């Protein structure tokens, strides 16, 4: 029962208040840099370029004064799974025939390429973990959705509803704690009615699915009821979409943001150059 208490405290990348250069950046600059860096992480496949990227991202984490131990804390429980998957990747990676081998023992062949793929994907994992923390721990959710909306606005000329997509995100983030609380009351109500909520054995997965349904079905019904109320409220206020809409807080690009984007461009060139060099 006590486990239900935690449901309303869902945090998606908790905001850590601070007054560092990274905290002060415009959310649009941060989102743009975030998206570009993710693209860059996917392109970097050599040791040199991925280590360089890790260095760049780590220096940003240090600049934002985020506690590294805290950022790594949610990886810790998954360490066994990571180890098993890496081992599988190492043993079964199909290198081209004739690739130089690190180890050949009976049927076991481990090539240098396989070792590189495993190490690079582990570094990539670290880089992405830090990147996500950099974005969500230094930006409030409201400025994130504002930034997203303003970045998507030019796309509305192409028929992509930028304002609507950002609004869906904002509605979702607003309703997570409310529905979490609702789920807590549902769980308690079903407990009070002695609904069988024991988790059965692994083979009883149909039973387990029904057990989860006893919690999830009322949650969906409640969400739909709230949605109907909200639709009525929006119509009553003559909501008509993003066109001609103004904001309480208008985002402005300062010189700091241009400097950040310039540095970003430089690091892209640097990483791509290192990637092109025939380093291992």
């Amino acid at each position, binding site marked *: 029962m006590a486990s239900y208490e935690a449901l309303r405290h869902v945090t998606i990348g908790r905001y850590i208040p601070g007054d560092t250069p990274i905290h002060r950046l415009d959310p649009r600059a941060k989102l743009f840099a975030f998206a570009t860096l993710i693209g860059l992480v996917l392109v970097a496949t050599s040791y040199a370029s991925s280590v360089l990227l890790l260095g760049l991202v780590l220096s940003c984490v240090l600049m934002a004064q985020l506690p590294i131990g805290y950022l790594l804390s949610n990886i810790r429980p*998954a360490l066994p799974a990571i180890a098993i998957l890496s081992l599988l*990747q190492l043993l079964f990676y199909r290198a081209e025939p004739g690739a130089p081998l690190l180890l050949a023992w009976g049927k076991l062949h481990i090539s240098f390429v396989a070792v590189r793929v495993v190490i690079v994907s582990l570094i990539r994992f670290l880089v992405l973990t830090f990147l*996500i923390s950099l974005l969500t721990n230094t930006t409030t959710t409201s400025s994130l959705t504002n930034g997203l909306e303003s970045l998507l606005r030019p796309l509305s000329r192409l028929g992509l509803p930028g304002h*609507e997509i950002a609004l869906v995100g904002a*509605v979702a983030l607003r309703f997570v704690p409310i529905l979490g609380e609702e789920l807590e009351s549902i769980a308690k109500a079903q407990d009070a009615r002695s609904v069988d909520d024991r988790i059965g054995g692994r083979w009883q997965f149909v039973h*387990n*699915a029904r057990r989860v349904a006893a919690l999830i079905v009322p949650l969906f019904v409640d969400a739909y009821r709230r*949605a109907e109320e909200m639709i009525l409220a929006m119509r009553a206020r003559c909501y*008509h979409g993003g066109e001609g809409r103004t904001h309480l807080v208008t985002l402005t690009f300062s010189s700091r943001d241009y400097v950040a984007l310039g540095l970003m461009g430089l690091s892209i060139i640097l990483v791509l150059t290192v990637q092109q060099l025939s380093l291992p």
Partner: protein
Amino acid sequence: MISNERGIRRIVIAGLLLAITLLLVFTRIGMIPMPTPAANATIAHIPAIIGGILEGPIVGLLIGMGFGFASFMSATIPMFKDPIVAILPRLMIGVTASWVFILLRAATRRTLSIMIGILCVLMLTFSYQTYQTIAWLGIVVAIVAVGATAWLYWWMRRTDVQIVGLSMAAAVGSLTNTVLVLSAAVWRDYIPFEAAWGIGLTHGIPEAVVSAIVTVAIVSALRHIGEGWSDSQL
């Protein structure tokens, strides 16, 4: 740009279903213990399926995108920290569920039987092809195909046609998730091809069954189809 009620409806319902997705992903309440190596089946993709079925493919796509982002953000293993594995395949969950639901909405028992027949023939052809490369796998696939067809036919004879359509849509949405995620993972060299087959068979099928059960329960409650539903809000 929206000017009608349908636009508002889509935004609000996509928002609320996305909120449920985030809740399921971040609290791990949607984990169902399973007799498979991967240990747990997820039901976090079910809001995307329901959005697709009830409000159409666009809402399904939006919720799928949100699910992808959430699983990308909360991933604790390297495979899901790759947007190509975590986000791209998830876009299609609600879309395929929606298409299957639209296709089966007007179906009668007769057309359903024909569809099951075609499905069986397709699966047997596939098993024959597999048999020529990996013999034992081909035999396993053939046995699964015949068993699944017989069970599907028996189940379809004694179930409401509307519920058959719903379950099929949910199962297809769930299998879309499994198949596309595993293909992306193999393509990006995270898991070997044979392991992907193993995970697909032992994990994908039970997960599809669970999704079908939970989706039918939810949609029946929302639409008051079937019997025995009261107006209780908790």
